[in-house]
């Protein structure tokens, strides 16, 4: 009899205690982030879409078309062709196929001039066709981005996305 009552009380008390816990959780803030309206702050060095950086003084691409990023890319998604000799050498066209990119950051690390960057915060890359994920040179420096490894935040406003031009896919296939 005594044991029966003690077990009964124990059960009742445990229900009260667990209800206290659920009540506390009822009034904690929900962890959900309401995505399109609010977005999570990305880590400073999150690897996102590539941009080609621009030299602030000359307002020109830093890229010298040395082809090192294209060679180191394990997914073989970077294609470019240069023109000009010596210091005047610049890419004629530069295409990154983001269908293939595996976000390894090797192209950024290997670049001798910090001319390519992935610290851009552009992660909303969805498109309605595969060609819309193929980015050409105009798209990749359209925002005037110049993020570097040391100062990844862009003054030009992160998250600005220019739509890729129509000819982007054709260029990729040609290369």
């Amino acid at each position, binding site marked *: 009899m005594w044991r029966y009552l003690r077990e009964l009380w124990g059960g*009742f008390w445990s229900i009260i205690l667990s209800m206290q816990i659920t009540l506390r959780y*009822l009034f904690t803030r*929900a962890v959900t982030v309401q995505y399109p309206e609010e977005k999570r702050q990305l880590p400073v060095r999150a690897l996102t879409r590539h941009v080609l950086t621009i030299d602030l003084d000359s307002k020109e691409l830093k890229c010298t078309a040395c082809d090192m990023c294209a060679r180191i890319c394990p997914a073989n998604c970077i294609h470019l062709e240069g023109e000009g000799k010596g210091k005047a050498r610049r890419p004629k066209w530069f295409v990154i196929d983001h269908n293939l990119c595996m976000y390894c950051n090797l192209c950024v690390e290997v670049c001798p001039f910090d001319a390519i960057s992935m610290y851009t915060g552009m992660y909303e890359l969805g498109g309605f066709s595969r060609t819309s994920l193929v980015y050409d040179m105009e798209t990749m420096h359209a925002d005037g981005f110049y993020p570097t490894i040391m100062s990844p935040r862009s003054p030009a406003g992160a998250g600005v996305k220019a739509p890729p031009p129509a000819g982007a896919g054709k260029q990729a296939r040609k290369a």
Partner: protein
Amino acid sequence: MPQIREELVARFYALFEGWGIPWIVPRLVVMLVVVSIIILFISVSAMFLIWWERKISAHIQARFGPMRVGGWHGWAQSIADGVKLLLKEDIIPTQADRPVFILAPMVVFAAALAAYVVIPFGPGLIVEDLNIGILYFIAISSLTVLGIIMAGWGSNNKYAALGALRSAAQAVSYEVPLVVSLIGPVLLVGSLSTTKIVEAQRYLWFIVLQPLAFLTYFTCAVAETNRLPFDIPEAESELVAGFHVEYSGMRFAIFFLAEYANMFTVCAIATTVFLGGWRGPLLPPWLWFLLKTYFLLFVMIWLRWTLARVRVDQLMNVAWKILLPLAFANLGITGLLVWVFS
């Protein structure tokens, strides 16, 4: 309030008598109006409850729940769901027992609806103040299980049949402590009429005098309405959905409506018998009644998202070995004290 209502009804009857129409017509019209009001109330409160339950469950799990439909915190979610359910195709399985299958949700809903007759929303705000109110509620509330058995049997589905059998076992077991726990307050009042019970709690709510009876009643009420932790008739992990596996669209919506209507009924009776019904300071009586009832409903939802489902044998243990002795102990002590003090 009751005087105005009675006068209106009397004038209505007189009007028809003047036109020479038989007396049954105006009475039927009045009944129809009252039933429509009740069905409207049930629908609105069920829709609110579904939304509320989703919100509470979400916040207990640190989520938001419905946030999109209707703008402010997804308030129109249940309206959208209701419209969707009404527009869906009405599927009746070929192997089902057609008339039983079709009738089952109606029986469940009719039982849930009939119990609203004795709920006193305020002084005079009661459909019919029966002198056997509590007895009527007990009788009607156990009618729900008939509809559930019909649904389980008519579906011709093993999960549905199992769910219905479990529901029958559960309802029969929990009916006993439920009734016995309600006898305590009835002994104190000396009447089964719900209005008289509320009026007897002018100075002291019966939850103070009968805490054991309240706890027993509330536990049994949760079990009667087939809700967690006693929802083994529709245990999703074992029985898919229990007795309403084969139901879809509008018929499923009626089952859903009946479940929430039942929840409201048992909480309303708990408010009437233990929490002083419509009595309270400042606010109007009907608001007090709804506030108390919705608080109990909140406790029910809160309990649902706190406790895990019990096993079948545990369910029977709780009913016969714990709740019934407690209810009888409470009844014995109450009877003794009433006999000593009167």
